C-alpha cells in the first residue's frame, strides 16, 4: 500500500507543478459553460426578414408593425421587386420574405380578398415552419381584431408547458454541456497522460517498479478523478447560481451518478491509451472520435428518437446518452433511484467492460 500511495503522491505533484495545464483544466470548462449556457439557444428571436410592400398603406404598415414588435422578426431591408428580394436572400442570412399585394386598404374596406405571401428560407426546415407559423398567427390575430363579428363554433386551445414553463433552452443545454465537458476532459486527460509515459519511455521504468500494472493505471487515474470531480462541483454550482437550473432531485444521488460517469470516461481514456503509441494519436482519437459523437449522438442537440435506427444503436453505446437522461431526470423531474436504476446499471456495466478490456490490453502490450 505504501509504495502505491507514494506513487499517487508523485502523480499529483506532477499535475500540480504544471500551472498552465491546471489553469486550462479548470478555467476552460468554466468559460465554456458560461459561454454556451448563455449563447446556445434554439429559441427564435430577431429573424431577419425582407419586405416587399406593394400596398404601402395603413394596413400593410400595421401588419409590419405587429411583426416587428413581436420580437420574432427584424426587418433587414425593404425591396421594390421580386428580383431584389431573391438577391437579398443570396447576399446574407435572410430567414423570411413577406410580400404585400397592392390596395390592401381597399380590400379591407370593401369586403374583398387580398393575399399576403410569406416566403420562408427552407434551408432550415424547422425554422421555416416555426417562422411561418408565427407570422401567420400574428396576421390572423390582427385580422380578428379588425373583424366586427366573432367567429362561430370556435375551439380554443390552452397550452401548459410541464417542467419548463418558461420554455428556457438552458434546461437542455446546461445538462448537455456538463455531459460533454466531463466526458472530454476526463477521457482526454487520461489517454494523453498514459500515452505520454509510453512515448517518452518512462512507462517501462514504472513497469519494473514493485507496483503491478493495474495499480500503476489506478494510481495515474486517481488524481484526475479528483480533478474531474472538482470540475463537476464547479459546473453544478454555476448551473444553479448562474443559470437557475432547478435541483429538484437528491443532490447526493446526482453527485454519485456524476462520479460514476467520470469513472466511465476515465475507463474510456485508459482504453484509448492502450491502443495508441503516441500522444498525438491519443489526442486525435479522443478529440475526433469522442467530441463529434458526443455532441451529435448524446441527445444534447438533436433528438435521438428522430435518428435512423443504426445511429440510435450507436447512441446506445455512448455513456453520454445515458448520463444525459439521468442528469435531466434528477435535476428537472426530481425523480429518485426507483426511476433511474436501469440507466445506472447500464453506466456501471459500461465502466466494468471498458476497464476489463483495457487492463487486459495493457498487460499484453508491455509484458
Amino acid at each position, binding site marked *: 500500500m505504501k509504495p502505491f500511495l507514494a506513487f499517487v503522491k508523485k502523480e499529483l505533484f506532477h499535475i500540480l507543478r504544471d500551472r498552465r495545464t491546471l489553469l486550462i483544466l479548470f478555467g476552460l470548462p468554466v468559460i465554456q459553460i458560461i459561454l454556451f449556457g448563455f449563447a446556445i439557444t*434554439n429559441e427564435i428571436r430577431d429573424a431577419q426578414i425582407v419586405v416587399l410592400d406593394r400596398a404601402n398603406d395603413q394596413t400593410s404598415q400595421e401588419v409590419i408593425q405587429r411583426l416587428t414588435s413581436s420580437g420574432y422578426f427584424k426587418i433587414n431591408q425593404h425591396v421594390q421587386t421580386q428580383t431584389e428580394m431573391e438577391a437579398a436572400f443570396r447576399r446574407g442570412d435572410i430567414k423570411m420574405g413577406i410580400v404585400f399585394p397592392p390596395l390592401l386598404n381597399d380590400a379591407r374596406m370593401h369586403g374583398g380578398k387580398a393575399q399576403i405571401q410569406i416566403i420562408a428560407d427552407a434551408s432550415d426546415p424547422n425554422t421555416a415552419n416555426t417562422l411561418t407559423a408565427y407570422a401567420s398567427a400574428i396576421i390572423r390575430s390582427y385580422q380578428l381584431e379588425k373583424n366586427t363579428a366573432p367567429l362561430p363554433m*370556435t375551439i380554443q386551445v390552452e397550452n401548459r408547458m410541464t417542467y419548463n414553463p418558461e420554455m428556457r433552452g438552458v434546461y437542455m443545454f446546461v445538462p448537455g454541456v456538463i455531459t460533454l465537458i466531463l466526458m472530454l476532459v476526463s477521457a482526454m486527460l487520461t489517454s494523453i497522460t498514459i500515452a505520454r509515459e509510453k512515448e517518452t519511455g518512462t512507462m517501462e521504468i514504472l513497469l519494473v517498479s514493485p507496483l503491478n500494472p493495474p495499480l500503476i493505471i489506478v494510481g495515474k487515474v486517481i488524481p484526475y478523478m479528483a480533478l474531474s470531480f472538482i470540475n463537476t462541483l464547479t459546473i453544478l454550482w454555476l448551473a444553479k447560481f448562474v443559470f437557475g437550473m432547478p435541483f429538484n432531485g437528491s443532490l447526493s444521488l446526482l453527485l454519485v451518478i456524476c462520479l460514476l460517469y467520470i469513472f466511465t470516461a476515465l475507463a474510456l481514456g485508459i482504453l484509448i491509451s492502450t491502443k495508441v503509441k503516441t500522444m498525438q494519436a491519443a489526442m486525435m482519437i479522443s478529440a475526433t472520435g469522442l467530441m463529434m459523437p458526443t455532441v451529435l449522438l448524446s441527445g444534447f442537440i438533436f*433528438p435521438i428518437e428522430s435518428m435512423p435506427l443504426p445511429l440510435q444503436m450507436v447512441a446506445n453505446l455512448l455513456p453520454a446518452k445515458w448520463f444525459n437522461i439521468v442528469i435531466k431526470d434528477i435535476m428537472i423531474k426530481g425523480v429518485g433511484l426507483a426511476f433511474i436504476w436501469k440507466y445506472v446499471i447500464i453506466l456501471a456495466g459500461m465502466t466494468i467492460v471498458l476497464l476489463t478490456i483495457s487492463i487486459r490490453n495493457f498487460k499484453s502490450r508491455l509484458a
Partner: protein
Amino acid sequence: MRTIQLLLQKEFLQIIRNKAMLPIIFVMPIMQTMILAFAANYEINNLRLHIVDRDRSAFSRQLTQQLDASERFVVVYYDNAAHLAAQHMQADETDMTIEIPVGFEKDLVSLQNTQVYLGANAINSVKAGVGMNYAASIIADYNTNIRLRSMPIVPAVQTGFLEIAPTEWFNPSRSYKNFFVPGILAVLITVIGSMLASLNIVRERELGTIEQLNVTPIHRYQFIIGKLIPFWIIGLFDLALGLGFAKLVFGLPTAGNMLALFSFAGLFLLAILGFGLFLSTFSETQQQAMFISWFFMLVFLLMGGVFTPIESMPQWAQVLTWLNPVSYMVQVLRLVLLKGSGFTDLWPFFFKMTGFVIALNAFAMLNYRKTT
C-alpha cells in the same frame, strides 16, 4: 524557394508516415459527413400522445382520429384517466397530453365556444414548441371543417379579408442534410487548419527537434511556411472530398459558383492557419495545445451558427460571433450551395475574411519565437 521545397517534402513525408494522421485526413471527412448527415435532424415526428377524452362524443372521437392520423403523432394512451397523465410524462412514456373536457361537443354547438387543453413535456423546449404548433394546426383544421359542415356559407366579414400564402425557397425537398452538411464541412477544415497545424508545431518544440532546425540556416518564415502549406492543401482537398461525397451520396445541391466557394475557403484556411500558429505560441506541450485548440473548436462549433441560429443569441454573444471566422465560412458555404450565390453577392465576406487573414497572421508572427 528551394529551402521551402525541401521543407515541404519533409513535412509531407512525416504526415504520410504518421499512421495516426492518414486516417484523420482521409477517413474523418467522410465519416463525419456521413454520421452528421444522418444524425442532424430536427424533424420532429412520432410525438407520443396521451389523449384524455372526458367527453366521449362523436366530435371528440373525430378529433382524436385526426390527431392519430397525422404522422407527427402516435396516440399511446386513449382513456379517461386524467390523474395518470403526469405519471406517464414523468416515466417518459408520453411527450404530450391532450385533454378534451366534458361537454366539448355540447358547448361547441350551443355556446359556439369550447376549450381543449394541451400539455407538453417542455424540458426540450423546441420539441414542445413544435409539437404544440402541430397539434394547434390540426385542431384548427378540424375546427374549420366542422364550421363548414354546420354552416356552409360563412359571411366574408367573419372569415376576414386577408389570406396567407406560405411559400418555401431554396430547399424544396426540406432536407436537413442540405442545411447541416455545409456547416460540418466548415468545422472539418477548421479542425485541420487550427488543431492539426498547431499540434504539429508544438510537437517539434516538445520533442526538441526545433532546436536542431534553429542551428540550420533556415529562416523563421521559411520554417513556418513549410509547416503551414501542407495543411492548407490538405484542408482544401478535404473540403473537395467532403463536398464530392455529399453530392454523390445525398445529392447535396451545388447551386452557386464553386470557384467563389473554393477561393473563399482558401482565404479562410489562411486565416485559420494563422490562428493555429497563434495558438501554438501559447503552449509548450502538446497536451496544452490540444486543450486550447479543443476549447476554441468547441466555441467555434457551438457559437458559429452550425447548429443553432446566431440571431437568437444575446447581443454580447452575437458580437463575439463577428470575431468567429468559422461563422462566415458556414454562411458562405450555405449561401453558395443552397442559394446559388456568387462573387458579386459575397464580396463583403471576402473583404472581412481578408481582414482576418492579415490580423491573425500578424498576431501569430509577432508572438512566434523560433527560439525556445
